């Protein structure tokens, strides 16, 4: 049997009592790509990862990872996957090296090779200096890197990363992103959940937007952005009182009427080149002063807002439900 897709999810359903965490999810990921699972807290992202990582049984539907059924072949599958999450699952009382050695041995390596592999990973993740310190002395970013290192001990072809950078400072996020990009360039398939749109934009080659247990949109980041529309001009006026005049002056530039929020006017443009000059000329003729003007591509934030009708912000009540119920 040839495996066409590294991750294949069909009609996955999971309920926790009354809470419907997954309501028929379909997903496909090819080998060596990052599939970004984007959605607010409580959308079902974590539940999906837990089902795929063999931690949770689905109520209906099927899922295969590297050709193995997540339920029937769970034991075999566990040798081929790595899991790292937002909670940085390392033993705080063990040193970095002890943690990685333990994980390696639990994958079936002998003590010596587990230790060697641990050292190799610590070096790669710039943790060698802290190798013999208990991990409770590590910073948040260091723990997250160690957690990711633990997921990589057995060089799994598939990696599940559940909100790997949540709560990290910008510098740690960036360095974790670089590590993930390195892994993907070596052929690792990654399923990445995130609520950060910039993260999905940077890392994912394919994105599935998930909300309330369903995949509501999918495609490359560019395809998703195109779906929301092309580029837009964002103009900040020096006086909100002139907004109506400005909107009228700009109306002929686009098919849809410009939108006005306070002193900011937004208008869609057909062609990028010359758009700013044209807009400034029109506004100047109309006698409207401009404070700032910029051409903006839609962000995944815009995508999310357009698709779900609400911004990609935390919805903590639902998260608690999802996490508490079993």
């Amino acid at each position, binding site marked *: 049997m040839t495996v066409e897709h590294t991750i294949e999810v069909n009609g996955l359903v999971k309920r926790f009592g009354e809470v419907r965490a997954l309501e028929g999810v379909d997903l496909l990921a090819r080998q060596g790509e990052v599939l970004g699972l984007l959605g607010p807290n409580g959308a079902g992202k974590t539940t999906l990862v*837990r089902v795929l*990582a*063999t*931690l*949770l049984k689905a109520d209906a539907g099927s899922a295969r990872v590297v050709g193995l059924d997540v339920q029937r072949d769970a*034991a*075999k599958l*566990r*040798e081929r*996957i*790595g*899991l790292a*999450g937002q*909670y*940085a*699952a*390392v*033993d*705080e*009382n*063990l040193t970095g090296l*002890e943690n990685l050695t*333990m*994980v390696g*041995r*639990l*994958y*079936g390596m002998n003590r010596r090779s587990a230790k060697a592999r641990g050292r190799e990973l610590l070096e790669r993740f710039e943790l060698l200096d802290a190798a013999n310190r*208990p991990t409770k002395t590590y910073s948040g970013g260091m723990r997250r890197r160690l957690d990711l290192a*633990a997921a990589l001990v057995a060089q799994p072809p598939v990696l599940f990363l559940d909100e790997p950078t949540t709560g990290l400072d910008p510098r740690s996020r960036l360095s974790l992103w670089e590590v993930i990009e390195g892994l993907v360039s070596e052929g690792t398939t990654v399923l990445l959940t995130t609520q950060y749109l910039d993260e999905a934009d940077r890392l994912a080659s394919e994105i599935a937007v998930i909300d309330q247990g369903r995949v509501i949109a999918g495609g490359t980041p560019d395809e998703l952005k195109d779906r929301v529309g092309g580029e837009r001009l964002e103009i900040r006026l020096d006086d909100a009182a002139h907004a109506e005049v400005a909107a009228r002056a700009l109306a002929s530039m686009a098919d849809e009427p410009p939108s006005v929020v306070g002193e900011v006017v937004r208008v869609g443009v057909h062609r990028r080149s010359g758009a700013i000059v044209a807009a400034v000329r029109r506004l100047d003729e109309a006698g409207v002063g401009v404070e700032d003007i910029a051409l903006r591509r839609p962000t995944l934030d815009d995508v999310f807002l357009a698709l779900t009708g609400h911004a990609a912000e935390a919805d903590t009540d639902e998260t608690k439900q999802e*996490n*508490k119920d*079993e």
Partner: protein
Amino acid sequence: MRRLVTDTLIIAERNLIRLPRAPELLIAFTVQPIMFVLLFRYVFGGAIKTPGFSYADFLIPGIIVQNIAFGGFVTALGLNEDLHKGLIDRFRSLPMARPAVLAGRTLADVVTNGLSAAILIATGLLIGFHFHTSFLHAVAGFGLLLLFGYAFSWVFAFVGMLTSTPEAANSVAFIAVFPLTFISSAFVPVASMPEVLRGFAEVNPFTITVNAMRSLWLGAPAHNNVWGAVVWAFVIIAVFAPVAVARYRRATGR
């Protein structure tokens, strides 16, 4: 099967190497039981009549059994912590033997229990406790003690997997086990209790185990207590190990 043994040993090693790094646990293991020995011996001891034994001889087997039963406490707390920090998720995503996380924990308890029992015996010897039997009997008693403690570690493993917070694990375990240890022959002769309590105390596994210890260490009449205690330990393991492992298989973190 080989996988189960090696994985269990790996987890037991993990729990033991972290022990010296959390000194508050070591103190709980050592200072607290010594304190209880001294309190019982010198505060209550004078008022409690123990026909046939000095109170020091009577007390030490009882208090050691109580202490060993609580030794599994760390297992409940530790598993609960692992659950909440996501470590159980990590373990469950690894190709390791399913019961190993719990079996490794309870195995590590045997080592710490042995340590704290040795400390209590030493304290006992200082305050007037004597072995009245042969060396082999004393060693057999020590073995029974560890078996009984191991059985209770599985009770605590279940409690740790069942409760949602370490605080809850703490109070459930305490409320369930503490009365059990007191309504027994551990500190006073059961003959001195009201009839209802005495009826309970006489079938209580603690009483049976404490009496078994007294026969192995002090030469008290054995009756069926030694076998009874061994059977109790195996029954407790047979009940709680499967339910704890079943809980683990379905455990969800956080």
